[in-house]
């Protein structure tokens, strides 16, 4: 488990991270969410011991002692590799720094899995951008780390490799790894993460189990699309819908009004679509952040 307790970091006049507390559990994927410049990367760099917090505590499995390098896999957002050495040498060097046993075999296996098996002698500079991304990811997980921190891991990957990466994330989760997944793309986080931590302007806006958050903060809405858009002018929609936009009327569901609303609408109008819309993380986030600014 990783715990951040009241962690604060200030750069000059700007509080990049302001009293943030987050818990990340083993066997779960925790999404760090927030717009660019929210403080995600600074938080991660403090976790990685690259910069030190001004105050607050970071615990790994309850200890302030930082785990050894071989227990940590970090894929930074700003990432790259030595360009002039071969793929094999690159992985070998990092494996050596992390005291990986049987590195030769592990490197070959990973390269094979990512479809780079026949290119281990190629120089890094000869690889396409997507392949360099794969190599960086291999370098993050080759040593089978207990703590995995991935900052925007999907950027630059094609759909096939995105799928492979998701598969591997799932495997690592099953193996009980503690995983942090940072992104500003809400839909990705929604699909992959078990827990989320929303950060904005250095402050933790929201943290917890993704399903609970949706339940607590989201408005489940009923969306009705009539065949004739002109029907939306009718008094029924105008008086009862909470929002009318782009050919749809949205109704807030209060108590058990769902079937009543559908019945009424069905009798009065010719309907094309009726659906219950789950709240998106993005809406919740925008709602919370706007609330923050008021």
């Amino acid at each position, binding site marked *: 488990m990783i715990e951040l307790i009241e962690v604060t970091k200030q750069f000059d006049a700007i509080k990049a991270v302001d009293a943030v507390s987050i818990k990340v559990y083993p066997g779960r994927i925790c999404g760090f969410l927030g717009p660019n410049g929210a403080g995600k990367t600074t938080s991660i*760099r403090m976790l*990685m*011991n*690259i*910069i030190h917090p001004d105050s607050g505590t970071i615990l790994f499995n309850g200890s302030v002692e930082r785990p050894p*390098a071989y227990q*940590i896999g*970090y*894929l*930074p957002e*700003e*990432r*790259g*590799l*030595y*360009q*002039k*050495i071969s793929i094999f*040498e690159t992985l070998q*060097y*990092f494996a*050596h*720094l*992390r005291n990986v046993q049987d590195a030769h075999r592990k490197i070959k296996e990973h390269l094979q899995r990512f479809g780079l098996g026949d290119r281990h002698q190629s120089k890094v500079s000869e690889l396409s951008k997507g392949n360099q991304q794969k190599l*960086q990811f291999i*370098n*993050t997980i080759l040593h089978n780390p207990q703590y995995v921190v991935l900052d925007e891991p999907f950027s630059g990957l094609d759909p096939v490799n995105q799928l492979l990466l998701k598969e591997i994330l799932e495997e690592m989760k099953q193996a009980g790894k503690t995983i942090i997944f940072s992104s500003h793309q809400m839909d990705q986080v929604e699909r992959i993460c078990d827990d989320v931590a929303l950060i904005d302007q250095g402050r933790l806006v929201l943290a917890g189990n993704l399903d609970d958050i949706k339940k607590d903060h989201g408005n489940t809405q009923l969306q009705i699309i009539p065949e004739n858009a002109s029907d939306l002018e009718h008094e029924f929609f105008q008086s009862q819908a909470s929002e009318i936009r782009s050919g749809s009327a949205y109704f807030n569901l209060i108590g058990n009004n769902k079937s009543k609303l559908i019945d009424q609408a069905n009798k009065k109008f010719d309907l094309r679509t009726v659906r219950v819309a789950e709240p998106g993380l993005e809406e919740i986030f925008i709602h919370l952040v706007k609330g923050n600014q008021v």
Partner: protein
Amino acid sequence: MNFLKIAWFEYHRRIRSKWFIIGTFGMPLLILGISLVTGYFAGSGAGLETKHFGLIDETGYYGSQLSQALDLRYADREFAPLDIAVSVGEFEKLQSQFDALVIDKTLEGYFVIGADFDRKPAVRLYARNSSNFRLTEVVEAELKDILIQNRASGLNLSNETLAELFFDIDVDYYDIGAVEERESDELIADYIAPFIFMFLLFLGIFTGGQLLLRAVLEERSSRVIEVLLSTVSYNDLMGGKILGLGLLGLTQSAIYLIVGLLAGNYYGLSLITPTIGALYFVYFILGYLLYAGIYIGVGALFDSEQEAQQAIQIITFIAIIPMVLWTVVIENPNSPLVNGLSYFPLVTPFFMMIKIAVGETTLLQVILTILLMIISVYGSIRLAAKVFRTGILLYGKRITLPEIIRWIRA
């Protein structure tokens, strides 16, 4: 232990690179080649031209004497820098004719020896420009000899007495307590060897420094730095680089010194004594570490190699001082200027290396400069560590001097 792994990585991947091999073995070959080629041209006179002068001789005697003397002077050379065409006659009558020859560039200029030269030994030179003073010094010296000999012969002295009056002196060089005269190539070696030691030191320190700068910039611009820093500490990363690339510079120096030693032995010259060799490595290590701090600090501040190189130029400009002043140091190793500069840490290793090779320093001076260097190295590396720690992760941001000062104070 990580810092040894990093050192090995930096050392190993560069020592195999073709540029290191080309640089290490190419540089001495290039220098040797240039000196051979320039030597050949200097000897053959190719690329140089004979300067043609005229001479109006109103005496009808000294002109031809001078011409003969010059022939004798340049007899054993393949190339005569000065050629004088003599016309006997009066200046007034020949003046316009000679002026025309100078104007149409047939002649550089013309000398005039007046009719009363015997009594009033003066020569006039009419020329397009006065850049040929080295050649006119030759004319002055030869005419003086001719005039003295002429006056002496007027005294009706015997040939023996004349021979006693006119002679050349050679200075022969002996080592203290030595019986045999020193050979002229030994004398050249005495002069050149200190320069070579300084030059090798210079080459080694700045090769290492430049590689260090590039290594830091590479990790910064390729963004590999952040993964590295999640794996190893700042100090391991910086220390490993300094050690690895320092060893590379040391390897290069060792190759040169061994080649120098073998070449020296072959020619029977003992250029490198154990003391000089040991002090060479002491000053190499201290000088390298001092500059390593500077190069690492600069590398951590800039995104592009171009910007970093511009910043480092100021430092290189200071370091070039010994390259410019080396003859002064060899000839005046104990002058106040040289002694003063020897305590300026950025150039201490280079000045001291020359002084040690010339044998003009004291044990106290060696100890003091080494202590001074150790203090400077400590300061340089400490400052570099602070700048490196903060600057290395600030990509794409122009860093101001007040910011740097704040980091250093923090």
